[in-house]
């Protein structure tokens, strides 16, 4: 199980702030594809992601228990 977090406009677009996805041994790119195909959550291709609170590239292999957060362009400060 992978925990997925959404923030800001993505949270509104996805209609939820978190979800759990059954997958293991696949990559972040695979997760994005799955979210688009199965949950109709679009526009993730160009959004940065963090795995376990650290920015991670698309080829990162996800393991059971990982937390993936999609990070829209930040606007703090």
């Amino acid at each position, binding site marked *: 199980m992978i925990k997925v977090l959404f*923030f800001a406009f993505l949270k509104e677009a996805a209609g939820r702030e978190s979800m759990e996805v059954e997958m293991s041994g696949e990559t972040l790119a695979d997760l994005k594809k799955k979210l688009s195909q199965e949950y109709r959550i679009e526009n993730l*291709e160009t959004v940065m992601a*963090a795995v376990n*609170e650290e920015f991670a590239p698309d080829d990162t292999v996800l393991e059971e228990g990982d937390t993936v*957060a999609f*990070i829209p*362009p*930040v*606007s*703090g400060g």
Partner: protein
Amino acid sequence: MNYEITRDKIDIQDVIDKVISRNAGAITTFIGTVRELTHGKKTLHLFYESYEAMAVKKLEEIGREISERWPDAKTAITHRIGKLEITDTAVVIAVSTPHRDDAYKANRYAIERIKEIVPIWKKEYWDDGEEWIGNQKETVAYPDGRPEENELND
């Protein structure tokens, strides 16, 4: 705890107190406040959201980056989230160094890095709508380099 995300009003003196040092001759602070007008449009209020656990880690990372570049610097950053009214303080950055040139430069470095790597998002509310600030048009990937000049001045 020199790096904090809070839902409460920020006490500026508290942030400054964290960087006071017998070796410091200069302390600079940056206080980000909610401005009413942006590009002529009137903001009613703002809402800040964060990925809090990661945001604190990234603030700490900025502190380590500053210590690498300015070894004598002490840094403290507090960012507020939730609903903020016009003139409210959104962020306070305090940096102390022995000499003032470093205090200005390290402080400026901190705010630029916050706008690059810290997962905090701002939503603006106007009379005629609301919008998450940042690039919501999905046309630009997250900037990993220096911010653009116009962002520098925002």
